[in-house]
């Protein structure tokens, strides 16, 4: 029954699906493209607010996409109401009908289909057996534990024999042990039934354990789609590397064929990236080998050792970099150690361009402004060879340039933007929505009030959700003229 036997056949397809909420203009899902094959176990994984639940709700029919199409078996269903779609949902808080007993809860969908009483009885009994709650028909919802309610919610959805089962963080409210058990049971159910499961979670371990395919999301966009192993071993960008498992991320540069320099040392790697390319190197804590100082590619001083059960988590400071290592060896705090990496323990990601770009406004007096705040830049330096005399700007050939004819692009690097507590200070301000530690600094994603995401590098630790002012020194800005 497993999907390995059948040839891949797409069951649901999302094409350029975008969801913008009418009331606040927030874009929850942006240009989402995905094909899911019949019988697959697909997981949408991401932090809260990444758009995973909204995507699921659009597949279920509770939300309509603002644009784009959702195709089920080749037919566009994006305008169909939920009750006309052959999909069923297991809700986060179960959403069981408290005024009905268990039998009526499960039979709800079947009764609407006007199925014969005996048929309903048989199906309800069968599905209760499947979730291991035989004989619970007459019980009321209130007498059930959280885990039992969860099973009933699954049974209520499965009894309708949907083509796709949607699960919205179904195990979120259960305790750890129960969650582990349910993960295994859900996976077994999926294998046994052969129907398509779409599962939403923020728990990366859950996603890695259960899925055939993981869709990592952030900020309403797909970051990576792939098998659990691929997502873990070959993360496409720093976000995925940071979100899936633990990782050390370093900025670095390719120094030769399959040679890379980061963290103060030169390493051999498996990725063939042209020399001179700026990269992010991902090193999983379990892949770092601790050696004698003389044998290590880089050396450092142990600053912390924490016992984690099967291994120790060791923090080593090497120059200005910090490396987290998982090892069964137990150096002491203060020890000098060497660190080595096997080539396949290094994953190279080509660094993304994180330059912030915007257009400056030019005032009547040729002063520059953005967002109503002055940019302290000399216009004659921006417009090469120009002279400002008596309030009129003339180019090198003496021609007058009107302020409204000037279009000036400004760009600034992440490391040159300073963050401050004072949100009034600086050109703009925003909320920190994501942060990743990159060995010697943090890389922050700051979302401004008008929804732009800026990347800012800062040595110091700020918290998620902090409101910060972004100071951009004019001397660090690059100005270019547009024609």
């Amino acid at each position, binding site marked *: 029954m497993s999907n390995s036997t059948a040839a891949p056949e797409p069951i649901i397809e999302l094409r350029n699906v975008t969801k913008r909420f009418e009331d606040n203009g927030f874009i929850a899902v942006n240009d989402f493209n995905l094909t899911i094959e019949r019988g697959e176990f697909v997981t949408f994984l991401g932090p809260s607010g990444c758009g995973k639940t909204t995507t699921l709700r659009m597949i279920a029919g509770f939300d309509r996409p603002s644009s784009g199409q959702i195709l089920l078996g080749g037919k566009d269903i994006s305008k169909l109401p939920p*009750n006309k779609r052959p999909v069923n949902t297991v809700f986060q808080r179960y959403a069981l009908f408290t005024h009905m007993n268990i039998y009526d809860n499960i039979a709800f969908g079947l009764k609407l289909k006007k199925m014969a009483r005996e048929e309903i009885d048989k199906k309800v009994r069968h599905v209760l057996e499947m979730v291991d709650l035989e004989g619970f028909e007459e019980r009321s919802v209130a007498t059930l534990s959280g885990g039992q309610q969860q099973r009933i919610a699954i049974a209520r959805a499965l009894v309708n024999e949907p083509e796709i089962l949607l699960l919205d963080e179904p195990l979120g409210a259960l305790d750890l042990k129960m969650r582990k058990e349910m993960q295994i049971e859900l996976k077994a159910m999926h294998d046994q039934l052969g129907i398509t499961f779409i599962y939403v979670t923020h728990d990366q371990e859950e996603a890695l354990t259960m899925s055939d395919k993981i869709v990592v999301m952030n900020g309403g966009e797909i970051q990576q789609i792939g098998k659990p192993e691929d997502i873990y071993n070959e993360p496409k960008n720093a976000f995925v590397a940071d979100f899936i498992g633990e990782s050390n991320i370093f900025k670095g540069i390719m120094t030769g064929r399959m040679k890379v320099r980061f963290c103060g040392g030169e390493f051999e790697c498996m990725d063939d990236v042209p020399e001179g390319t700026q990269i992010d190197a991902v090193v999983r804590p379990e892949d770092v080998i601790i050696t004698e100082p003389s044998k290590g590619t880089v050396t450092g001083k142990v600053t912390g050792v924490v016992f984690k059960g099967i291994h120790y988590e060791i923090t080593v400071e090497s120059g200005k970099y910090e490396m987290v290592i998982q090892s069964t060896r137990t150096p002491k705090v203060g020890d000098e150690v060497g660190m080595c990496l096997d080539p396949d323990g290094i994953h190279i990601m080509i660094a993304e361009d994180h330059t912030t770009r915007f257009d400056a406004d030019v005032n009547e007096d040729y002063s520059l402004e953005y967002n109503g705040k002055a940019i302290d830049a000399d216009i004659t330096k921006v417009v090469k060879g120009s002279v400002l005399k008596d309030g009129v700007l003339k180019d090198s050939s003496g021609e007058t340039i009107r302020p409204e004819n000037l279009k000036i692009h400004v760009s600034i690097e992440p490391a040159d933007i300073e963050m401050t507590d004072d949100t009034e200070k600086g050109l703009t301000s925003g909320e920190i929505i994501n942060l990743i530690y990159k060995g010697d600094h943090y890389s922050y994603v700051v979302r401004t009030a008008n929804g732009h995401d800026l990347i800012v590098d800062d040595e110091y630790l700020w918290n998620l959700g902090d409101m910060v002012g972004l100071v951009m020194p004019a001397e660090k800005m690059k100005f270019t003229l547009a024609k």
Partner: protein
Amino acid sequence: MKGMFQRKYLGIPYALYLLVFVVLPLIVIVTYAFTDAEGNPGVGNFLNFFRDPNTLGTLVYSLVIASVTTMVCLLIAYPTAYFLAMSSIRSKGAIIMLMIMPMWINFTLRITALKELLTMIEGNLALHPFMNSVIGMTYDFLPFMILPIYNQISRIDKSLLEAASDLGADSRQAFLRVLLPLSMPGVISGISMVFLPAMTNYVVLDMLYNSTYIMGSLIGSYFSAYDWHGGSTISLILLAMICIFTLLAGGDENEGTVRGGSVL
């Protein structure tokens, strides 16, 4: 232990209040109801009540007025409460405020205003006693119907409606099978807060120059004629009816009644 003793003493004022204003009057009423004018015990008063076509007629008339008033209130209140609770409009708070506000205005003033308004429309109020009774009471009791229903519907987890539609229910089926049953505690609470006062609140009718008699007016008339035995009997009958009604409304629904009423 000392704290426990002190806390117990806090109940004394209320116990006294209960004794003086509830228990003793009840004993007095029961005593009067089961004795005749000479003080001989018996059930003669009750027989008189049920044999007299006039008093029975008043009872039936009260029931009819109260039922119609309750129905009208329910028909206005349920859709109002439903749309208020389900919508996400910003001015929701203001609209609810507008509905509660009449309750802040002095009762006499409110009914006098209504009387003037009705006189303007109808001319002689005495021509439509039944309709005016219903209008007056609906006007007075409507907020008591809207609020418990609104509270109950607001409390319903909206994902239950999504679940219903996910399982194949169209919006009508989702309403009938999920929302309506779950909102029933609010409805029952509203009914008991409208139906019972509507049986007895004859002040509204008096002020509308209404000649119709309801149970409240009947009791009033007996007591003003110094027939304490007859008045007590009718009070006791009414009390029994209220008890029966409350029991019929369902023991476990009491929780909803209390919660629904608590906002008022």
